[in-house]
């Protein structure tokens, strides 16, 4: 349904920056209809950049994004905009995801204003009632401005906007990381429930291994801009040494991550400086290869 081929992104490093640093490097990724792909990795590994490239919010330096078989790079601007009702994003910061100058209701209904044909003759008010009922907001809350709502309520409003047009593909970029622990579960449940009802594909970006295990039909692990392991049950039986490390009892979120100041060796496997199993072969970058139920990028797995 949505597919990325050889996606690579170099950000403009400026006059003195390192132009060879790729945020995302040759990533192949696909998500089927109704499927959830959980993308895990440390902060700064390129998860969000990859998600935004799939939405074509960030244009890839190399590689193509194919949506329902059509190459987004080959589309004209107006054509792409007309197709965009099928794409939605739920971002990490609910407090700036809604225009502070607009009432929450107006923000929720914005997709209908952009794609007025999608209303199909239904009234805006009816749609608003349906949406806020689905996400569990009060009509009175929808009439307020974003700064008058709590983080959890804001995220519900963001979800209401995201599901307004029954999209085909939603990117959820760490939607609960800024929320209170007590609210996270209810937001996750809401997202899961709405996704099932609409039947849309979902890229769920997170650094929480447990969340990825619960939500992901498939899981992809990213490291330094590349996918190192991807498949259905990889978190239960990890093959790549990095996946093994992050599923270990401590996990990446509890300070088991990689030391930040460590230099990556050019041309070598990204994980080599930390890998307990590294050998001479690992000084060449391993290709990602199929191993039955999964794809792994490691010389030592075969």
């Amino acid at each position, binding site marked *: 349904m949505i597919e990325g081929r050889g996606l690579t992104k170099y950000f403009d490093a400026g006059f003195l920056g390192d132009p060879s640093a790729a945020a995302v490097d040759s990533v192949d990724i696909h998500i089927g209809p109704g499927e959830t792909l959980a993308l895990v990795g440390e902060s700064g590994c390129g998860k969000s950049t990859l998600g935004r490239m799939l939405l074509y919010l960030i244009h890839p330096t190399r590689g193509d994004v194919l949506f329902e078989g059509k190459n987004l790079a080959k589309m004209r601007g107006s054509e792409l*905009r007309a197709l965009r009702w099928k794409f939605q994003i739920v971002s990490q910061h609910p407090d700036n*995801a809604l225009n502070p100058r607009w009432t929450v209701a107006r923000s929720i209904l914005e997709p209908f204003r*952009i*794609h007025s044909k999608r209303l199909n003759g239904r009234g805006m008010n009816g749609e608003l009632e349906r949406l806020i009922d689905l996400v569990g907001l009060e009509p009175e809350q929808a009439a307020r401005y974003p700064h008058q709502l709590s983080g959890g309520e804001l995220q519900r409003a963001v979800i209401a906007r995201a599901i307004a047009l029954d999209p085909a593909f939603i990117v959820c970029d760490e939607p609960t990381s800024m929320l209170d622990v007590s609210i996270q579960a209810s937001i996750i449940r809401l997202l899961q429930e709405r996704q099932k009802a609409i039947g849309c594909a979902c890229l769920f970006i997170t650094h929480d291994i447990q969340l990825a295990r619960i939500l992901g039909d498939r899981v992809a692990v990213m490291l330094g801009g590349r996918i190192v392991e991807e498949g259905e049950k990889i978190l239960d039986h990890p093959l790549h040494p990095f996946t093994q490390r992050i599923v270990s009892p401590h996990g990446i979120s509890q300070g088991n991550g990689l030391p930040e100041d460590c230099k990556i060796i050019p041309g070598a496997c990204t994980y080599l400086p930390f890998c307990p199993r590294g050998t001479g072969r690992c000084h060449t970058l391993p290709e990602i290869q199929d191993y039955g139920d999964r794809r792994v990028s490691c010389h030592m797995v075969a």
Partner: protein
Amino acid sequence: MDAGCVNLQDRFPTLRGIMDVLRGNVTLTAGLVIFFTLFLITILAPVIAPHDPAEQDLGNRFASPTPEYPLGTDQFGRCIFSRTVYGGQISLAIAVISTVACVLIGILVGMYAGYYPRLDAPLMRMTDIFLAFPAIVLALPIIAIVGPTPLGIILAILLPGWAKFARVIRSSTLSVKSSGFVEASKAAGATDTHILFRHILPNCYGPIIEIATLGLGSKIITITSLGFLGLGVQPPIPEWGTMINQGLTMLEKAPMIALSAGSMIVLFVLATNLIGSELRKIIDPRSDTIVI
């Protein structure tokens, strides 16, 4: 929402919110009172002024203040009080028109430069060129070409004036551009025009109001300096800068000519600075520098 702490960046202020702010902020209230009083006096000049500002009474030159001439008369026997009251009309009209024009040009240039990375360098270098010249250096040749008419003065203020506005609006655009609601709108297929005018512009209103208020004061100063240099509105139309210019030579004989016009300018600039700096504190409590 606590009283006295309305964040203009967060939402449109309601009438009640505004009243709460005013009750807690004497400086802002004082500024607004002076500002609107001066505006009212100027607009109501035909009602307030006892004489026609151009009416000469040559038998009654340099008169001392009397009930008939509250501030005395000038070298042609014209009523100084009436001339001061009328003098604000042309100064304030030019100041308001040129500020609005500066804001509009600044919004267009600033928003497009901030939103489209490709336009950023060309538009901002052009802005830098206009910022590099002292305002008066650009104003003098324009007055020389167009002539010392109201249109000429507006152009002379506008040409060097819009650049500061463009810079401020560009930086606000850059910060709003990266927020989640702009991204979500773009992901949902909104056009650039929709994003620029529905999302980015309303979120720049705070800084725009602030620099426009401060700008209004500096425009009055520019207008009166042009008048003082003899390049402003020409006599016999009453104008504050021209009045100071003419009154200066007669400062001992008839001090009220220059002093009355001068104090009006001081009051007006004081009011705009009070309002502008207080708005700045409300909009951005962390910074205390003044842009203009």
